[in-house]
């Protein structure tokens, strides 16, 4: 069975643009008439296939089905939140991305309301989507930090290996990017520890190495620069040799962004 959790958001608190509380409307998909007939049972049976290698159209069809369904068992899962996240990350339109991520948050909240508190994936995709929602809104991001931290911690406690160490990766990046002590929860040491764990325990995932490299770069340790560059090489290799589907392109951009940041010409 293919791992359904390969694609991970980059929902960090990077973009901070003070805006009013956004009004998230449902994103309309085109060509839904082309969607294959899909029963709830069918969707449930193939939910693990829906991931980074699925076409955007397939994900849109599935999300459209989920919007219509009243099936409690299906809504109890992380599927809706996960699909929304995949679609959000593929979108180049900030407003569309945000609306899809907001829908992902709502799906996760529905799952929790139906009793999915013990499902690490629900908390994980809730946090990943929430990160994308607040990415463009500093004030909202500030308000959401405690919830983000709590959701990721919960998913890490339930299943740290989810999405190749996804909870560790997310939590580590949250601590790396959040405002630092004494005004915020940012903590470079905690970030380094978590991201080292992610890279060591789940070495298959390219972003584990990229993010560990970023934490090393900020660590002020001796030889950290060499170690960071080494992690980047490993991460690039993992990205090249793995089948990461639609995730590959945005991840390549993430590598390029950090490599540019640490290039001698920009320091």
């Amino acid at each position, binding site marked *: 069975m293919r791992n359904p959790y390969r694609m991970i958001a980059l929902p960090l608190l990077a973009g901070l643009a*003070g805006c009013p509380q956004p009004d998230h409307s449902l994103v309309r998909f085109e060509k839904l008439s082309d969607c294959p007939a899909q029963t709830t049972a069918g969707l449930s049976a193939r939910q693990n296939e829906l991931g980074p290698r699925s076409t955007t159209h397939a994900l849109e069809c599935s999300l459209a089905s989920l919007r219509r369904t009243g099936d409690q068992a299906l809504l109890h899962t992380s599927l809706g939140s996960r699909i929304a996240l995949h679609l959000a990350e593929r979108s180049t339109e900030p407003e569309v991305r945000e609306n899809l991520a907001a829908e992902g948050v709502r799906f996760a909240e529905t799952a929790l309301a139906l009793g999915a508190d013990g499902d690490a994936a629900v908390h994980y995709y809730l946090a990943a989507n929430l990160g994308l929602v607040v990415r463009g*809104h500093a*004030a909202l991001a500030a308000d959401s930090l405690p919830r983000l931290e709590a959701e990721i911690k919960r998913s890490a406690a339930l299943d740290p290996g989810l999405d190749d160490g996804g909870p560790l990766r997310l939590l580590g990046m949250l601590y790396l990017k959040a405002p630092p002590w004494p005004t*915020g929860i940012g903590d*470079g040491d905690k970030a380094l520890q978590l991201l080292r764990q992610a890279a060591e325990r789940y070495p298959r995932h390219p972003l584990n190495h990229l993010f560990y490299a970023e934490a090393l770069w*900020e660590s*002020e340790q001796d030889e950290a620069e060499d170690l960071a560059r080494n992690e980047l090489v490993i991460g690039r290799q993992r990205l090249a040799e793995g089948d990461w589907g639609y995730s590959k392109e945005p991840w390549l951009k993430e590598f390029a962004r950090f490599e540019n940041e640490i290039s001698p010409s920009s320091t």
Partner: protein
Amino acid sequence: MTRKLSLLCLLAGWLSYAAAGQPPIVVCYPGGPVSEDEANAAMESMLRVVEKAGQWPEHSLTSVFTSRVDECRKLLAAKKPRFTITSLGQFLEQRRTHHLVPLVQPRIRGATFERYQVITLKSGPDSLDKLAGKSLGGTVLEEPEFVRKIVFAGKLDPQNTFDLKPSRQALRALRALDKGELDAVLLNGQQSAALTALELKNPIAPVFTSADIPLMGMSANSITTTPEERQRFAKALQGMCSDPDGKKLCSLFGVEAFVPADPAAFKPLIERWDQGK
């Protein structure tokens, strides 16, 4: 409605500032751990609130950020900003070259000044004299001249007295102190105030506390800006922390409000800096 607002703004004279081609606000935060991309994005957030408070058109204000002192000097020289947000050290150093005058100051925990402290383990050196030759860490050390002239009031040269270990994270420096990897840490007022909530294994104590040092906010080039522009900008910033979005941002950085800068608070520091002591 939009037209009415535009007309009002035009009458108020903001177009002179908001016109295309105005230099960006240069923001320098030496010693900060944030990446420039993230800080620039955070500044975007602040500027949108300031634009709203000052009734400037959205995206009429821009900024560039750096956390490096050398880069700050370059940016100030290259961009020739009319408004800047810098550390106090950079303000004092660049004041003459760029004709900077303080515009607004943040108010944090009821005060517009702070006191720097040198912290050691209680079991360690109990005076600055006993710290001589030992390691001193902290984020403030990115600006050693500021530390010498202002924090230590010209009475002690940290570069010749201590083994300086500048850090971009105060928490990391304090943990190093706790583990015995550093002998002392220099903290700013905000960092000192947060010490009580910090869980360290070993008791710590200040061995030095500076005089009151004004908190630095925004400054303006007094040649390339008019008094009206400065007043307008200052007023917009003063409204920032009462704006619903701005309030959250202010809270994020621990700022209660921005208030008009008190020139008298800066005068003795400017004199001391210019005397080179």
